[in-house]
């Protein structure tokens, strides 16, 4: 089957089983320029051959260290950046041919971490929320804004005429959520959207997000560095390392047993919460490596305690881990035919 055949088959649109997003081999590289002639001297592999799907009505968590490409992935999905390669299929429609970027942008909304920078300081809260619907020519943007304010827990009578600087961080993040919902999106990407909030406020916003998902039939992509929050909110989780997927699967399966050594290290790095069992050994040494010219083979091999020759030579493919076809990992340990000396053995990553 040729590549186009595969795509048109996947493009079978509609129905609950059609993924809302099919991301196929996404690639985004940034040139690094330097020197007298501003020549390209290196390449940032921000997102490299990244494939995954987002199912209708689910919350997909994305985790990984800073710089691994989480935000770049999000920007590609909302069309804030152009793909170098790969394709995005939105509910069966291929982006760029079946569905325009403009239509896609309405259906996919994003909420960022910095609640202040993403709001126009000169617009009142109700004008901020009504702005998108007005531009799109939707009916009654003002009413819509007031209704949504009430829905996210901001009393319209008190807050409609306030400006962003007159709100707390948690209140501003509610405005950002209301603004995203005002466009009646199908997918909302939350990029570290609760990370800057105080814990008690974060819990309020998480409850709100849970309610809204049901009420508006939303699908979420939830990007966060907090594994506790990701476990609480997500159905499935995608683990990224240097622009690639290293593991993806149901939250319960991955939290119970990590297939990839990198995922296991991320979990081991979480503070312990048990004063009688504090962490004794850091799971990884040094800082996350730079995605400029990443290492060959398995990109994690420079930090992996299981790395062998094959890991430097050959890129491991994503394959099912154990007998759960939904739980995939890209590690030679998990491929019995890889040639890794521990391949296929029952070892904890």
């Amino acid at each position, binding site marked *: 089957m040729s590549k186009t055949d595969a795509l048109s088959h996947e493009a079978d649109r509609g129905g609950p089983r059609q993924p809302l997003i099919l991301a196929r081999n996404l690639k985004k590289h940034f040139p690094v320029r330097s020197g007298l002639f501003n020549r390209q001297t290196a390449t940032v592999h921000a997102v490299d051959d990244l494939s995954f799907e987002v199912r209708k009505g689910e919350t997909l968590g994305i985790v990984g*260290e*800073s710089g691994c490409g989480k935000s770049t992935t999000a920007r590609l999905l909302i069309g804030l950046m152009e793909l170098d390669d790969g394709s995005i299929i939105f509910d069966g429609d291929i982006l760029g041919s079946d569905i325009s970027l403009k239509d896609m942008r309405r259906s996919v909304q994003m909420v960022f971490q910095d609640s202040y920078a993403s709001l126009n300081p000169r617009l009142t809260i109700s004008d901020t929320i009504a702005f998108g619907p007005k531009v799109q020519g939707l009916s009654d943007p003002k009413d819509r804004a007031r209704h949504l304010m009430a829905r996210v827990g901001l009393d319209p009578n008190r807050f409609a005429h306030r400006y962003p600087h007159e709100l*707390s*961080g*948690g209140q501003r993040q509610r405005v950002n959520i209301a603004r995203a919902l005002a466009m009646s999106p199908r997918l909302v990407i939350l990029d570290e959207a609760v990370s800057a909030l*105080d*814990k*008690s*406020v*974060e*819990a*309020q916003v*998480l*409850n709100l997000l*849970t309610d809204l998902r049901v009420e508006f039939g939303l699908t979420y992509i939830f990007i966060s*560095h*907090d*594994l*506790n*929050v990701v*476990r*609480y909110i997500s159905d499935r989780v995608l683990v990224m390392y240097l622009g690639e997927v290293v593991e993806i699967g149901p*939250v*319960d399966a991955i939290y119970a047993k990590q297939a990839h050594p990198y995922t296991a*290290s*991320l979990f081991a*790095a*979480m*503070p*312990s*919460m*048990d*004063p*009688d069992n*504090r*962490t*004794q*050994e*850091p*799971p*990884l*040494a*040094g*800082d*996350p490596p730079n995605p400029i010219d990443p290492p060959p083979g398995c990109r994690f091999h420079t930090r992996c305690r299981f790395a062998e020759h094959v890991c430097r030579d050959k890129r491991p493919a994503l394959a099912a881990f154990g007998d759960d076809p939904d739980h995939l990992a890209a590690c030679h340990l998990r491929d019995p035919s890889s040639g890794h000396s521990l391949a296929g053995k029952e070892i904890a990553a």
Partner: protein
Amino acid sequence: MSKAPLLQIENLHVRFKSDRTVHAINGLNLHLQEGEMLALLGESGSGKSVTLKTLLRLLPPKRTEIDGTVQVNGTDIMTLSGTRLSAYRGGDVSMVFQEPALALDPVYTIGDQIAETVMRHKSVGRAEARQVALDMLTRVRIPSPERRLKNYPHEMSGGMRQRAMIALALASRPKLLLADEPTTALDATVQIQILLLLRELQREFGMSIIFVTHDIGVAVEISDRVAVMYAGNIVESGSTRDIIKDARHPYTRGLLAANLHGVDRGRRLDTIAGSPPSLETKPDACSFAPRCTEARPQCLRALPPFFAPSPGRQVACNLEEGYSPASHGLTAAPAIAC
């Protein structure tokens, strides 16, 4: 006999005056023993950084009113000025920040900055100071320390800069290290390395540490004792184990629940409603009462006293009124007056 504490803060009040007043610290009491690791835990605006800045006398004198006493190693630090103040800052007490840019000067190499501090505080020559700088970089486990001495801060990665800042802060062998969220901006994989490093260095050097954080997990990894701050005061303190396993103050219990550790997936979270008070008026009742589901009439009438439900434990909450009132200070062993 227990020794006099290294640090004694009695009834500290800090107010900022401009067009409006901010009552940032409201009657805070805190004792710290030599070698103790205390986590100061609280949400944004609760007064953690102001407490540390008071201890280093870093607050702008014109706009700040400070009442109460702060003694470090028997010295009333509020009376320090001139050369004694600069000897104290970065000498007996030093500080590390969330943002290394606050401590590291971009135009000098790491080696020069550490050597400079050592010469200032230890009256040694340049050669010896360079030696100390090299030793410090080695102790904070910076790879190839000789080479790194010649690096400027911007030439280092985030985790490395944080290590360099710790080396700078510890080069003068302070008795007390103040750490203001030094790991908050780091990846969890790097954060745990820095926490374990601080634990090791504490064992090596024997200093006390006050570690400010809003993350309970971080407090567990770093501290022996936790003091929980709310609206400019400590509302509960006790051993880290007691705080985690048997939190008493409704605010502490809410914070623990909001950590989501071990919460069932998808179950509705018990949240603390509302948000912290603005601090524009001086609290004359329990500051948490407006958000507290268990508030009683007396909580709204007067400041709740401290109760001691168990040894080494202090809780400023009327729900504990069956227990004996706590004496001031927050030491596990009763401190003798000096």
